[in-house]
């Protein structure tokens, strides 16, 4: 059995909106393990809080309950729920990558620099980082004429490739993928799938949400099914009734 990189235990996330005096449950009682060189897929209906799990691990959301145990390369464990902001930033820089459906990047920055940035923060010289970014972008069939412009003007598919390239380039130990192929054409999808398989083969642990069950079947080593939190489930039932 491979080494576990991430263990999520009894994770829950809910939101409290003070203004409207509302309590909104999102994820509920999530338990899962992610292993090195394997892909764990999250499945479940809309409203089951799949994305909240990923954001909770990345700490874009503050988890409401549970433990998120991340195992460092040096074999010590850290609970991401309680880790300091600086520890999280350091993990984001060196260990954990996140590819969402949306590209958040600095405006006015050339695509090549957007993709190279994770390498630069790891201390790799800018020229070398740009060279590797160029390699990856050409492997992903992003036309070279786009490399020097900002991705802000790109089509959905082009943006998504930039986003993926940026997430993959530093070969993180743990990669979180939230519908990474959602807006790609079949040919590019295949390329991305190839890249994910490569990365897996090199030992990256992945936790992913795919919009298509077919992809889950092809790529997932483990599948974790989430159900909507009870309060939400009840209200959904009511709506359906």
């Amino acid at each position, binding site marked *: 059995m491979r080494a576990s990189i991430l263990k999520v235990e009894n994770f829950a996330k809910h*939101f*409290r*909106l*003070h*203004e409207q005096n509302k309590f909104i449950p999102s994820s509920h009682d999530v338990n899962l393990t992610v292993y090195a060189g394997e892909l764990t897929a999250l499945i479940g209906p809309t409203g089951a809080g799949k994305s909240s799990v990923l*954001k909770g691990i990345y*700490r*874009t*959301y*503050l988890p409401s309950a549970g433990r998120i145990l991340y195992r460092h390369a040096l074999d010590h464990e850290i609970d991401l729920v309680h880790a300091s*902001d*600086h520890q*999280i*930033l*350091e993990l984001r820089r060196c260990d954990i990558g996140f590819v969402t459906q949306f590209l*958040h990047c*600095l*405006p*006015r920055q050339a695509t090549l620099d957007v993709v190279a940035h994770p390498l*630069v923060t790891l201390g790799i010289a800018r020229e070398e980082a740009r060279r590797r970014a160029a390699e990856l972008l050409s492997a992903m069939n992003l036309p070279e004429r786009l490399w020097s412009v900002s991705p802000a003007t790109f089509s959905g598919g082009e943006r998504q490739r930039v986003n993926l390239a940026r997430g993959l380039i530093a070969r993180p130990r743990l990669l979180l993928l939230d519908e990474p192929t959602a807006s790609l054409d079949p040919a590019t999808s295949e390329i991305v799938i190839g890249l994910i398989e490569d990365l897996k083969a090199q030992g990256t642990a992945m936790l992913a949400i795919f919009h298509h069950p077919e992809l889950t079947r092809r790529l997932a080593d483990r599948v974790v099914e989430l159900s909507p939190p009870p309060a939400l489930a009840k209200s959904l039932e009511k709506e359906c009734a």
Partner: protein
Amino acid sequence: MNKVLEVRGLSKIYGPGCASCVESTGPEKETNLCPHCGSVVALHDVSFDLHEGEILGVMGESGSGKSTVVKNLYFDQMPSSGEATFFDADKQHDLFCLNAARQRWLRNHRFGMVYQNPHLGLNFNISAGGNIAERLLMSDLMDYGQIRERAKALLARTEVLLSRMDDLPGNFSGGMQQRVQIAKALATQPPLLYLDEVTTGLDLSVQARILDLILEIQQELKTAMVVVTHDLGVIRLLAGRAIVMKYGRIIESGLTDQILEDPQHAYTQRLVASAL
């Protein structure tokens, strides 16, 4: 990453102060004016850390005390209580225990400040180059030729036309004045830079270019920065971590993306909701 600055329990009260000042003010009381003695509690118990090369955003509306934080740390004012430690290579400086000369030395050599109002950061009676020369002279560079060269390089880096180096800042546009201020702040290559609402009041396109410049500088020089702003866009763009202030208190702190996507405090939720 090494710590550059550690702030603990920083407080600033304008006025006589009384025993009830703290409990009668703050976000819950929705005021920073003490009803008992009329003092203004501009800051109470502000604590945070800043690491090497990191940008910390300090956000809040006017009167939240966000500018007071950097004014105290840059010695423009003295706090009523609290501590701040500046870690400089192998040395530690207990900022508010230093004598005035040591404080001035740190200010001139190791800190930089860019104010919203360029009149605070620049001497309008001397040329743009002279403003930079002043800071270099403060750090004991006494060679005219070298001063000229350094000033030129700094102005070129901040994209100020060198042909205007010997002009008075009063003849510059607002964006250009901020560039000169940034060049001046960077003159001694300080490891710590304070930016107080530096893009407020500028045209959007000018703002964007100044923000780009700040990011480039942070990446090139690994300068740690405290960025004070009421603008969520500026925080989103520049800061890795942020603190949110209201009526002199920190009401929330965290990673910038977390504060923007999962704000905890009612005030922050309102702030974020109204911006999006």
